[in-house]
């Protein structure tokens, strides 16, 4: 049986078998959506950004060499696309706290107990208060379960810098989470 690794699929897309992108979409649309959602807290924006990533992968398929991991390449494109969209929308704050407050107000988490819900609510605010750089490494590390060496490749910085950044981001988040007034 041939194993359809991400890389072999993408190489087939590159060779002109564009339908294989459908399989990659099925594998990665949710994690990618989650990445954008954690970064922006806007559902429709996140959906658009996912679509953009797949479009860009099709358009620049020739640039995929297959030497690195497909996932790394994809997230590298994803965060560039996110950065571009942030630059384009400077006027509006791109992490939407209000949307998440609405969603979490009485929704899915209500049954998990009042206190926990408040925790999560508060965490959203704390995350919103982080700089994009910090939030980005936390999201990649915590939610996409990436190791530092992969994050380093995605962000095009060295591993030591990633480590320091995650450490600082966590410290910053902790400060906001534990010392801010909690109502």
């Amino acid at each position, binding site marked *: *049986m041939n*194993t*359809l690794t991400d890389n072999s699929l993408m190489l087939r897309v590159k060779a002109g078998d*564009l*339908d294989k*992108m*459908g*399989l990659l*979409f*099925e*594998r990665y*649309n*949710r994690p990618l*959506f*989650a990445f954008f*959602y*954690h970064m922006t807290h806007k*559902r429709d924006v*996140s*959906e658009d950004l*996912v*679509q953009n990533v*797949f*479009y860009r992968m*099709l*358009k620049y398929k020739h640039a995929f060499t297959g030497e690195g991991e497909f996932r790394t390449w994809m997230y590298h494109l994803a965060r560039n696309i996110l950065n571009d969209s942030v630059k384009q929308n400077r006027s509006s704050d791109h992490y939407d706290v209000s949307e998440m407050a609405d*969603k*979490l107000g009485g929704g*899915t*988490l209500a049954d*998990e107990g009042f206190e*926990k819900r408040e*925790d*999560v609510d508060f*965490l*959203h605010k704390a*995350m919103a208060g982080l700089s994009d750089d910090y939030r980005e490494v*936390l999201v990649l*590390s*915590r*939610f996409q379960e990436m*190791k530092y060496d992969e994050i380093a490749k995605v962000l095009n910085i060295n591993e030591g810098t990633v*480590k320091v950044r*995650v*450490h600082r981001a*966590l410290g910053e*988040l*902790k400060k906001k*989470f*534990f010392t801010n007034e909690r109502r």
Partner: protein
Amino acid sequence: MKDDKDMSCEHAKDKLEDWLHNDLDKADRLSVDKHLAECVNCQEEFAADKQLWESLAKMKVPEPREEMRVNFYAMLDNFKAAEATNKPFSFQTLIEKLRDIVLPQWTVQVAFSLLLVGLGWVIGNKTSQNNVSSTAYQQQIETLATQVEDMKSNMMLALIENPSATERLRAVSYTSDITHADEKVIDALFTTLNNDPNVNVRLVALEALTQFAKDAAVREGLVKSLALQDSPMVQVALADVMVKLQEKGSVKELRKLLDKEGLNDLVKNKIEQTIKDLS
């Protein structure tokens, strides 16, 4: 200091992220644990970080909407078409196209409502002039509503064989607010689900049929469709529908599907999971 037996606070903190990730080798983990047992400061700090780390996992992400998938496959189709004809692909055109699918739908909806209100008003006037009872008036309105439904069914049937995939998409979408679909509509939807060349159209037809799944014949048709689909997308979507409907009768067809040659791994896993979910 190299002495692992007496790890310093600094050294312990250096291992914090790896510790949170459960990513330390045994020796490192032991020495971190040992340090934590002896150092209240670090103990508190690590516990706080752990709490934070665990809370982060509770931040829920909503599901992306189904439109995201439909849009992706529409984009892929367009990209393929553009590649084939060597024309530059325009993202803008695609978005406009997809918007076109939704917007006229909305316009038609308003037109139908206005029609209903307008005719209702006319009938109302007539009936008050002629002193017809209000039950008769009510009946006439109901007949009218049925007629609007019929009209939609007819428009659907007229458009469903249109050469343009967009028109066919629109045709299928007319069924979304029909409450009683007659045989002709159901048949047309099945023909579309099983034969339409465009994956988007097939997916939308599947979605439309799912809302009529109270009907045993519709459920049976959906089960049969499993054997006819060659697109992984539709196969996976059908499997999802089977779970949603808890259609245990589909297990046999699903097993057959597993034996199909050239079934892609993703679909295979999905089908196996579906069989498990239904057994």
